[in-house]
């Protein structure tokens, strides 16, 4: 049993090494990410000399974001073109998405505030979930597996939250909020300690948002890539030089669908919670 196990393990490892060697000889060593291949990268590999494709590859995330914008536009445009009281398929789907989102947002912010901040939060969710799921389409890549993209979104959230805070609390209220809203003498004495902590907290929030989304999506993509490499290696152990691999990454695709949605939801929920934190308190509790 153990002998057989070892033998299989050795075979797989050898195959994997073989595949890795092959990959390294075929491609340049650094230009082989274990992510699933996308068409921009493939174009770059097919035409290594072309500076255009090289440039496109360097800004691949933006290209995919543009494609995603096209898809979102197409979807919602056709969903809202023949809008009617009795919804058709696309309109019903869009309504379902938006109503579910609105319920979640309103559950945290309350009915009135929820509706007020829903456009920002809703577009955040739709944009992120599209980006996350885009990597699961063959020859496409998740733009959110690049920390630049997630950091940009986090900066958007940061700016929006600070803008909301200043707008809703006023400059004085905003500073008071940053001081931890001291109520008594001890609170005021602790202010020099709390003020930098709260400023730091505000700065850490977008950092954690960006890192969480990037880490999850990139981790998923690497997992899929590794699964695929292993799948190819497993087949290559028996048929050397195979071009078709065993779909070992398939279970992880199902996992990725779920996790992508959850991560998009988490990003949106956290943005919602950050907004709810800077809303005037008595107002917020009144609506709760």
């Amino acid at each position, binding site marked *: 049993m153990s002998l057989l196990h070892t033998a299989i393990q050795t075979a797989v490892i050898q195959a994997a090494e073989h595949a890795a060697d092959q990959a390294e000889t075929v491609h340049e060593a650094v230009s082989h990410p274990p992510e699933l291949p996308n068409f921009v990268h493939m174009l770059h590999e097919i035409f290594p000399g072309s500076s255009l494709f090289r440039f496109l590859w360097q800004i691949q995330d933006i290209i995919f974001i543009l494609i995603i914008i096209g898809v979102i536009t197409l979807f919602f445009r056709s969903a809202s073109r023949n809008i009617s009281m009795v919804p058709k398929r696309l309109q019903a789907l869009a309504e379902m998405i938006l109503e579910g989102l609105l319920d979640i947002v309103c*559950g945290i912010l309350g009915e009135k505030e929820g509706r007020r901040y829903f456009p920002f939060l809703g577009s955040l969710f739709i944009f992120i979930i599209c980006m996350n799921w885009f990597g699961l389409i063959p020859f496409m890549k998740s733009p959110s597996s690049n920390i630049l993209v997630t950091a940009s979104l986090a900066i958007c959230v940061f700016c929006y939250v600070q803008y909301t805070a200043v707008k809703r609390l006023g400059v004085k209220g905003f500073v008071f909020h940053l001081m931890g809203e001291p109520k008594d003498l001890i609170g005021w004495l602790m202010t020099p300690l709390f003020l930098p902590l709260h400023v730091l907290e505000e700065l850490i929030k977008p950092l954690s948002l960006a*890192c969480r989304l990037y*880490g999850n999506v990139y*981790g998923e993509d690497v997992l899929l890539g590794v699964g695929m490499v292993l799948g190819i290696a497993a087949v290559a152990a028996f048929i050397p030089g195979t071009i078709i691999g065993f779909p070992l990454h398939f279970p992880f695709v199902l996992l990725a669908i779920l996790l992508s949605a959850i*991560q998009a939801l*988490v990003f949106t*929920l*956290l943005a919602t919670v950050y907004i709810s934190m800077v809303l005037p308190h008595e107002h917020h509790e009144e609506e709760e």
Partner: protein
Amino acid sequence: MQLDAQAAYHIGIGLAAIGSGVGLGMAVSRAMEAMGRQPEAAGRIQTGMIIGAAFIEALTIYALISSFIRG
């Protein structure tokens, strides 16, 4: 056998995963208990649970990212 820096990162990710796994388990089990006790508040509990789970799981992700960056 000597531990090199790379192995230390791997072990670190494993430790982080253990920690957040335990934390997630506790959080989710409590959330499920609460949902079982008050099914009518399931939506709110679930929202809170997802946010909490995101915070917990972020720690492992930070470890993973730091390993990516430094490894």
